[in-house]
């Protein structure tokens, strides 16, 4: 018998910051180690981004820009953004799954920081986000993409994507807390994210769209994000789109962070 006496120590009423960070790290580890046993997740994180990148480049590229190479140069930012936004919904699916399966209750019955299950999940999902993005950038570079704004631009783009994904993840948390099943979350991802990401500057220049569509594309936050990412990756004027996308990120977080937290604590 291993002699492990946990009960001996006086139970702390509030979990300290350091312990809370450890709990978060452990739960983030849990979400990452899952990948090892779940090929589907590896597919989500790796194969899907690669597949989209290849399909967009080699199916649409020639017609869109006259050459696959030129189109890759244009569309990589958009493909990355679309993939990144879809990925934010993994947080909702994962949380909802934990709730439905009872794992969430098990975690909440443990003497750990209240925020750790949420923070661990969000942190792990951001790491996965970076992984997918790095994969797409790497593949893009191998296929001939040239980052016009250099290494700093690439780092900036990664950071911006992470910041925006973090802001979006509170919406995702809210959905995850309220949805009745993971399947519903996935359904919603499809129905909301597809039109939202396509009706932007991600894949084609808005100038080719009808006027009413242009009006929407202009105000679509995805356009702001894509334009900023494109400027960071390809070079070009950055200030307006960057400000615009950061404002959107701030607004999303300002609205959904409190709502998500309330839904989360409502269960606690």
């Amino acid at each position, binding site marked *: 018998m291993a002699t492990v006496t946990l009960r001996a120590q006086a139970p702390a009423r509030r979990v300290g910051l350091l312990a809370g960070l450890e709990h978060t790290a452990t739960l983030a580890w849990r979400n990452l*180690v899952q990948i090892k046993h779940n090929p589907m997740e590896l597919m989500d994180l790796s194969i899907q981004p690669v597949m989209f990148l290849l399909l967009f480049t080699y199916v649409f590229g020639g017609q869109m820009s006259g050459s696959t190479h030129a189109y890759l140069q244009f569309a990589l930012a958009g493909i990355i953004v679309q993939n990144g936004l879809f990925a934010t919904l993994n947080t909702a699916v994962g949380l909802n799954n934990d709730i439905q399966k009872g794992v969430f209750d098990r975690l909440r019955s443990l003497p750990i920081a209240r925020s750790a299950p949420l923070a661990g999940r969000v942190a792990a999902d951001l790491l996965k986000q970076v992984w997918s993005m790095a994969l797409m950038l790497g593949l893009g570079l191998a296929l001939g993409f040239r980052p016009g704004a250099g290494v700093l631009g690439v780092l900036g783009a990664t950071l911006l994507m992470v910041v925006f994904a973090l802001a979006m993840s509170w919406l995702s948390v809210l959905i995850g807390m309220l949805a009745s099943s993971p399947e519903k979350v996935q359904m919603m991802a499809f129905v909301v994210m597809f039109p939202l990401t396509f009706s932007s500057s991600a894949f084609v220049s808005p100038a080719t769209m009808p006027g009413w569509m242009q009006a929407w594309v202009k105000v679509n936050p995805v356009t702001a994000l894509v334009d900023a990412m494109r400027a960071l990756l390809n070079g070009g004027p950055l200030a307006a789109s960057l400000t615009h996308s950061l404002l959107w990120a701030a607004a999303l977080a300002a609205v959904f962070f409190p709502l998500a937290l309330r839904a989360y604590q409502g269960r606690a």
Partner: protein
Amino acid sequence: MEFAIRAEGLVKTFGTTRALDGVDLVARTGTVLGVLGPNGAGKTTAVRILATLLRPDGGRAQVGGLDVVRDAGAVRAAIGLTGQYAAVDEMLTGTENLVMIGRLLGLPRPAAKARAAELLAGFSLTDAGGRAAGTYSGGMRRRLDLAASLVGRPGVLFLDEPTTGLDPHSRGELWDVVRGLVADGVTVLLTTQYLEEADQLADEIAVIDHGRVIAGGTPDQLKAQVGGQTLELRPARPAELPQVRAVLAAVSGREPELSPTGLLSVPARDDSVMPAVVARLTDAGLVAGELALRGSSLDEVFLTLTGHREPATDEPNDTMKVGV
């Protein structure tokens, strides 16, 4: 501390549903409290309140002498919870599931691994420890789930319908585990839909229905209250039905019920009924084709206690067949 679990007047409403309507529960330290009730009675709600997952709308509860609302953090450090549905991470291996809990409880990694190995061995899961829990059978999952709730060596353990959906063999194994824990001094609150299970494991039983405790006591007290067992008899020769019926009525002092299939039944309040019936039948030269003592099903307990039949539960009721 005399009582490890103590709840008074717990109330919880969901919208218009009064899931708990003033529930009192006590469990003496080191004993098993069985909370018996049909689907929707409020068992899970009560467990969730006691395990700090839900705030009561009224009443109060202490676990290990600590208030479940004000001292929730300290209560969590003292309890283990195995919910109604095996709450294991299907995408982690058995070992990883347990190591994760150990790490969350503050064990250094080597200690967490050692504790995981020890528990896996104790639950006959060592061979499966390296496999994703999603590949486990229902019984294995339950065992892993129970192991997960024991990582921190809790003094109070909540088991919410731990054997629902298990085959009889796995159920028996789980019962043995619970008995072992109690022998080690753990206090267990176990909810169940099976009278037999409560009878087997519990020192005290609280029967709940529609969010209220409608009966309580030791299993023997409860069985005495609800008529304990039912004696069933089918005459070998249908022509003898009236005489056999008269014998049953004379011994039990009750008019027997006759089922459409020709089975006579009377409540058997104590162990003397069966031998008395056999003796009288023999004396009268009557032959019983089928004679059995059957434990009251939960259905019958509820019929007796509430005067109404509960809607059928999703599991068949257990009966204790005693062939003669």
